[in-house]
């Protein structure tokens, strides 16, 4: 029996390509939110530079949240999710492929766009580098844990907002370590410990997220 990971990944990317608008929306939302902050607090460069790490990270969190419902909702509506659950292929593998596709179409573009936002906020070059790396490590966590949130609220009234309430508290460590790494760089501390902790949290979420998502999917389709 050939493993399902690559076929699922390929299918997800095919669908994403044909619905380009979805991924684009998330990216645009990210840029808009990050651009609103200076309008809200004033353009003073020192303030913006101090805020930059937090603002970029929070904008990334919110943009990721925005994209979570479409992880399972469409498949649930047209019956293909059911097929994944009855498939002889292990569900965690299928879910992992969906999460990987979600990251490739959401997290990765955000991470690449972030240094541009960082420039707008006056971050120096080395801090921009740390920002990019922290997002590359942190955005997969958003996809992994976000999948659990999306699965738990599948088909539930008010699902999108509820999923946000459920996963945002769990995202606190990502935010702290991610934004913290950039702040550390800015004030002259070595960011590597923050990035390592972020990596450790990624390792934990790669176990917790898919387990919770699979369990929640089975509950949702009961």
């Amino acid at each position, binding site marked *: 029996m050939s493993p*399902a990971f690559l076929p699922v990944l390929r299918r997800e990317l095919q669908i994403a390509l044909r619905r380009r608008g979805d991924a684009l929306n998330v990216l645009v939302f990210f840029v808009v939110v990050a651009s609103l902050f200076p309008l809200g607090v004033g353009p003073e460069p020192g303030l913006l530079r101090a805020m930059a790490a937090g603002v970029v990270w929070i904008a990334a969190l919110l943009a990721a949240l925005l994209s979570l419902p479409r992880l399972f909702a469409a498949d649930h*509506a047209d019956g*293909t999710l059911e097929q994944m659950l009855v*498939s002889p292929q292990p569900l965690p593998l299928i879910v992992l492929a969906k999460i990987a596709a979600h990251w490739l179409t959401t997290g990765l573009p955000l991470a690449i766009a972030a240094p541009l936002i960082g420039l707008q906020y006056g971050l120096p070059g080395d801090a921009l580098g740390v920002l990019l790396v922290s997002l590359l490590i942190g955005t997969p966590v958003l996809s992994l844990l976000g999948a659990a949130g999306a699965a738990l609220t599948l088909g539930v009234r008010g699902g999108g907002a509820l999923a946000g309430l459920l996963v945002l508290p769990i995202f606190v460590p990502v935010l702290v370590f991610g934004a913290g790494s950039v702040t550390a760089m800015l004030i002259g501390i070595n960011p590597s410990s923050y990035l390592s902790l972020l990596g450790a949290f990624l390792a934990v979420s790669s176990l917790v997220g898919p387990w919770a998502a699979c369990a929640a999917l089975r509950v949702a389709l009961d």
Partner: protein
Amino acid sequence: MLETTALACERGGARLFAELSFSLAPGGLLRVRGANGSGKTTLLRALAGLTRPAAGEVRRNGTPFLFIGHSAGVKDELTVLENLEFSARLSGLREPECKKALEQLGIARLADLPARYLSQGQRRRAALARLALSASIPLWLLDEPFAALDSAGIAQVSALCSAHLVGGGMLVLTSHQDAAIASAAAQSVELRG
């Protein structure tokens, strides 16, 4: 092999059926009948392991199975062929002959059309095209397969089902219609709701 012992299912707090026991052997057909809302779909989903029964047991002994539910299970953004290839991969089939399967269901000319442009009946056929690839999967669980099909479609699907049974496969079917499916060992269950 498929066997249930004293199976009972609930939905929305109401008991749909109880003490349902039957056994299916190779070549066996089980028709599930009942009015709307009597629990036919719930029974089928319990047999597929999607729904937990309220009481009793379902035993498949690891028999590979195919489940096609109410929804077509077809993605709008993918073409008919892409949908079929994905379903086949998901079922674990290697080297599926998808084009031939589409011919058997009479929709070969729609192969490269995105599924959003299909009519209800065509979607059903696209979803059921899997049956033509699944002779090697012993147990078929089909929920209202003939819904939205015209008489030609019904004939094609019935033929596939009969061939499956003759080849030693097992079939559980819910349907309002009495389609002609040749079988050596046919059982029937009526859910009274």
